[in-house]
């Protein structure tokens, strides 16, 4: 792979550049999920904590959800934006443009793994042991990277062609977030909502992640299959859409 060093530089840049001017730098990657979780924990623990099955703690349940949602949201929007924002380079030097979207997804993956350190801490503090299946979080992470890179590639074409897609996507992402059991247990919803949440692909990813990390959910075989299908489908869709429309889209950069 000729472009591996470039991907490494890009991921590195994305990880360090965001906090370049801040005092604690990359420390924010650790702090951000903790702070967001703390706020939401304070707000929602009264309502939802008691609704979880016994043996599951609300704090790690919530934080795992936030961690994964941040990964998905940030990487997806960044991957979709990466090609438009690097248009200056892409119209002057030949590099496969897909590299930028892939790097965004990989940077998100790296942040996801870094964020698991504070998550582990929260697990232990709240008295929940890490699960023996912990290594499987790598599978979820890679599957999510596939999903975001694929969807991001497809969206990047739309982002360049139509400015409005950004706003539409933001709204859709918000809806998707509420349809993912991030800060509530699925059991509090009525049966129609439960069905919708069940078919939301992110629910499968999240169930597997929570289970793999600290036994905080019960994924089924369906979750695994559904996750795999979505990841592969997204990647195929993204590469296909991008290949097909890029030659005409590059002229618009």
């Amino acid at each position: 792979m000729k472009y591996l060093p470039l991907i490494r530089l890009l991921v590195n840049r994305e990880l360090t550049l965001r906090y370049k001017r801040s005092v604690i730098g990359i420390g924010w990657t650790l702090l951000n999920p903790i702070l967001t979780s703390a706020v939401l924990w304070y707000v929602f623990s009264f309502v939802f904590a008691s609704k979880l099955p016994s043996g599951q703690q609300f704090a790690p349940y919530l934080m795992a959800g936030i961690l994964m949602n941040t990964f998905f949201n940030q990487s997806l929007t960044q991957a979709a934006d990466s090609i438009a924002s690097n248009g200056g380079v892409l119209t002057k030097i030949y590099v496969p443009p897909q590299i930028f979207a892939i790097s965004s997804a990989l940077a998100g993956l790296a942040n996801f793994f870094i964020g698991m350190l504070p998550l582990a801490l929260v697990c232990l503090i709240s008295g929940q042991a890490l699960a023996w299946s912990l290594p499987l979080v790598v599978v979820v992470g890679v599957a999510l990277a596939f999903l975001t890179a694929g969807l991001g590639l497809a969206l990047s074409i739309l982002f360049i062609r139509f400015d409005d897609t950004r706003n539409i996507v933001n709204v859709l992402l918000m809806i998707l977030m509420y349809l993912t059991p991030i800060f509530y247990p699925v059991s509090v919803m009525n049966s129609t909502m439960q069905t919708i949440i069940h078919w939301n692909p992110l629910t499968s990813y999240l169930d597997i992640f929570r289970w793999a990390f600290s036994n905080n959910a019960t994924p089924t075989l369906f979750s695994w299959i559904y996750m795999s299908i979505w990841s592969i489908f997204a990647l195929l869709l993204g590469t296909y859409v991008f290949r097909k429309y890029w030659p005409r889209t590059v002229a618009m950069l």
Partner: protein
Amino acid sequence: MPVIEIKNVNVTYRVLMNKSSSLKELFRDAIKGKARVLDYVALQDVSFTVDAGEVVVILGRNGAGKSTLLKVLAGVLPPTNGSSKVNGKIAPMIELGAGFHPEMTGAENVLFYSALMGRDIKSVKERTPAIGEWAGVTDHMDFPLRTFSSGMVARLAFATATDEKAEVLLVDEVLSVGDADFQEKSKKRMHELINSGAAVVLVSHDMSAVRELATRAIWLENGHVKMTGKASDVVDAYEAN
């Protein structure tokens, strides 16, 4: 075998007539049947070859298709029809410092720019101090690029772009970089690269530089080749026009 081979290249851009760049407008226009698409022809049936050691200049007014042609040669813009073949490594100097980031240090930018051009990272790392020295910014290499003056940025970009030998140089108006001293220096380096057998395609409005450097010229007008031949002849005709 020629280093660059361009055969019957056409490039058409698709432009929406009423330029609706929002989905809503496009949707509205589509319903009313108003979304008319216009094919804007940027290049039409352009063919030529460039051999090693040749310096070909592309002349033409703004909008004649010069930049589009360079983009096709660089491989960033696939031609709508026809074929474009470049054998060998390209040093794209279409815009110096494309991909430079103000928050990264000089050294980091050299590395990143080189990686974009597909160069070997290890050897670039070793070369970085030499590149900085040649550009005359040694003392600044570890500071963010935003602290550089624009002349320093241009010098660093030129030094990086020309640091490695390439079979093909694509140059868009970047010969007049920096102060007088540096211009002398960069001109010398360009000559070295040309003498080492690089094929050069040059876009420039600086006719004296063109006469000095170019061996052949291609005059583009509205996307097609109006005249091609010895540089001095074409430049004469172009200036008389």
